[in-house]
């Protein structure tokens, strides 16, 4: 019941065009993440949706109602949209509990129900004990959680979240991730979730919109983004992907293609309509590479440029190719060690041939 339809949205601040022809069609009840580098316009898109910014071109519909065109603008308080702000925007003069209860009070929820709902939401974000504190006396992460609780309590039909978990530790983060999923399942609200953390985006969202420099460059299911990125930018952005050059790409017809990578024959996935190419760009994730322990197998020669400890595994940055010009990343299971400069041999187990940029939207 609360479909969001964004068509050809344009938005500039003075001379700078911040959003360019953004179109998104979000199903009612869908969970959509927006992923993109810092400064690409995510927050601005959210502010247009919420009604804080007037738009310069295009239109926005929410639940079948036109809420924004350059001429017409429904004020935020009449859109029934909840927002969790990037900078918290807590009301400094109210206690935590009051911050959370305020919207309910405005909506006319009776006191007793209000109190139970506030208590429940605060417990959810593990802030029950701090209900009487003021925002100034909280740590950064605690403030973030209050902002979250404030929005959750409202149970709006459309909820926009601007990096709601950015300042939280992993535990709380996964707890709240779960809570988002549960809240979403329970309420059926349409969620629009901005993040720069792809793990979050991929884990939570039904679909992910990847933004770059004011444009949406791909809007697809998480698996598709990861395994079949539509452009180099997406490929490079998702899942610590690397884009490298392969030669002699020959489609095999079953969604696969054969190619040659740094002189080694490899088997790749490709789009159904992929044509044969002498040179092409392919997308590779660290997990697609395997360290060869055995010197006899054919493999790609590389040397380690940096190895960092990541707990469960060791992440190694490699330089491969004749002039060590092809950078690759690989994860190596933990109880092992790799040193800077060490020479290794690797094999490519999977990869995706990035389709030719035919549509102009993939151009920045």
């Amino acid at each position, binding site marked *: 019941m609360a479909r969001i339809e964004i068509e050809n949205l344009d938005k500039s601040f003075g001379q700078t065009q911040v959003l360019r022809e953004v179109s998104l069609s979000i199903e009612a009840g869908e969970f959509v993440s927006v992923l993109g580098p810092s400064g690409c316009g995510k927050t601005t898109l959210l502010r247009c949706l919420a009604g804080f910014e007037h738009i310069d071109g295009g239109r926005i519909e929410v639940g079948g109602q036109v809420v924004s065109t350059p001429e017409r603008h429904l004020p935020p308080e009449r859109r029934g949209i909840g927002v969790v702000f990037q900078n918290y925007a807590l009301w400094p003069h109210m206690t935590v509990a009051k911050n959370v209860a305020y919207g309910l009070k405005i*909506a006319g929820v009776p006191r007793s129900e209000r109190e139970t709902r506030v208590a429940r939401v605060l417990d959810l974000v593990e802030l029950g004990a701090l209900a009487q504190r003021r925002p100034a006396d909280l740590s950064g992460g605690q403030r973030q959680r209050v902002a979250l609780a404030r929005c959750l309590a409202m149970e709006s*039909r459309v909820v926009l979240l601007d990096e709601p978990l950015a300042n939280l530790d992993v535990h709380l983060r996964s707890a709240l991730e779960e809570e988002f999923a549960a809240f979403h399942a329970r309420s059926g609200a349409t969620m629009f979730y901005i993040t720069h953390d792809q793990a979050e985006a991929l884990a939570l969202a039904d679909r992910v919109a990847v933004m770059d420099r004011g444009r949406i460059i791909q809007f697809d299911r998480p698996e598709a983004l990861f395994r079949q990125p539509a452009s180099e930018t997406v490929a490079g952005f998702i899942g610590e992907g690397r884009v490298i050059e392969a030669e002699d790409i020959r489609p095999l017809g079953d969604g696969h293609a054969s190619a040659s990578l740094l002189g080694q024959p490899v088997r790749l996935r490709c789009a159904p309509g992929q044509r044969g190419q002498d040179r092409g760009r392919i997308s590779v994730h660290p997990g697609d590479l395997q360290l060869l322990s055995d010197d006899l197998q054919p493999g790609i020669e590389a040397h380690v440029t940096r190895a960092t400890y990541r707990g469960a595994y060791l992440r190694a940055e490699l330089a491969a190719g004749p002039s060590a010009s092809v950078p690759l990343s690989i994860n190596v299971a933990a109880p092992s060690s790799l040193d800077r400069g060490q020479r290794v041999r690797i094999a490519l187990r999977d990869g995706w041939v990035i389709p030719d940029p035919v549509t102009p939207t993939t151009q920045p």
Partner: protein
Amino acid sequence: MELAMNRSGRPLRALRHLTRAGDEHAVVALLVLFVGLLSVAPLARLGYAALMPDGSFNGARITELLGGRRVIEATLNTVWISISATALATVIGTAAALLAGLSDMRSRTAWVFGFVLPLMIPPQVTALAWVQAFSPASPLLGALDLSLPPGTRHPLYSAGGIVFLLGLYNAPLVFLSVRASLHRLPAPLIEAARSAGAGALPVTRDIVLPLIRGGIFAGAALAFVSSIGNFGIQAMLGIPARVPTLITLIYQQLNSYGPSALNDMALLALLLAVLTLSGMALTAWLGRRGDQRVNSAARPPRLSLGRWRMPVTLLAWGYLALCLVLPLTALLGTALVRGYGQPLSAETLTFENFANALFHHPGIRDAFLTSLWLTLAAVAVLVPISVALGYILSWRRGRIARALMIASELAYALPGIIIGVAMILFFLRPLPFIGTGLYGTIWVILAAYLSNFLALALRPILGGYAQMDRALDEAAQLTGAGLLTRLRDIVLPSLAPAAMASGVLVFMTAINEIQVSVLLVSSRAQTIGPMIIFLEEAGSSTLAAAVGCLMVALILVLMLASLLFRRRLPPGVLPWQD
């Protein structure tokens, strides 16, 4: 989700939506009406009297009057005296706010009390005290063996003297405004500078001052307007020094005879208003440049004065001794004798004046109660109106906002006596619909106060908005709260220090108000400021001094009493409390 929606009740919500729809428009309409009725209309009536004396425009008369040698000279004097006095007040007021708000100077609370109190002493009293203190016959200079030889011109009888006293007198205005800004300055910005190696001085110069610039220039605007329209000091020092200024010329015009006196006075008043508005526009422009938005959740940091702590403390208290103790002792010395000029000694000491003021003159008591009532009413109306007006002015761009801005400053730009005349002209006729006129009642004085002090109340609040994170309001907007609700629940509390500063400014200025009320009082509505003047004129200086002392004492008691409630108030609201 169905559940969530239905629980709050669909029809109810629809109804609420309906009332909310016009919410903002209604507020804007109300503000336009308020400013239009209380500011624009009376002043337009005055402008009409000034420019069209007999219903027709006469350019020659205007050029002749404004082009006269004395008017030009007075205009030039007015401009440079007000600018210099503003500069002095700004420097002193800002320094005081920094000391009280940012340093670890000793006994700050008591000091701040003393610093704002002189606002309460009528400027004539202050000026007279200074004149006496530095006159050749002064007991003070005599005691210090610095007596001027008789026959020398009094050092304060000079343009410099006017600047000096106006500067001192208006410093608390700047102080209040700057302090409100300072209180919203977030600690991390200062800490970041300190960890970059900047000590107290560079931090103040490079970080603090630029960030509170809005507050400083708002205070400067207040000081400018207050200086340019201060008749008491300009007349008492300027006339003996033969330094004519516009406000003294206007008073001369008011006292002259002839059918055109009122119209000529109105014309001079317009000239003064133009100067004042230019000054305010200039300070507003200087204060607005650049971005001073800071996010909320501030804990005011303190910078250590280090080894300067003792000297600075002494200096600050020395300043207070001069500015507060000097006029106050003069006032008290007068109030405690029967006849003015009697030396205060065991024989002459009497509390008769106080007894008279308190018990034997019901007129004084009535006047005081009326003033208190009017002042509180003005505060109660102006602070909320200014908060709403500030919202529109700060966060809604557009023609209406700009027009409101100019209109609301208009009235403050004029000296009080002119407002009084404008109010008479405008409110004399019976009002439409009501049938009776407000003239001669207490309401016309209230209307004049509202009109004259609107800009005063607005200034610190605009400074507060400049520093407020808009997301706070946006977050509340999303809950569906209408503009009025948000103003009450979100904006006003966040602006509390600024709102309080504005309330205190209005209170302090209105309780003793003379220039506006003097034309509007009647036997039915008498206020305390003119009452003191009448007593003075009728030769009861000692009684007048006793009333003055009682007023100061009362304000002091109110200020102290406010401290009792400090725990219940948001931090930073009371200017005299850390």
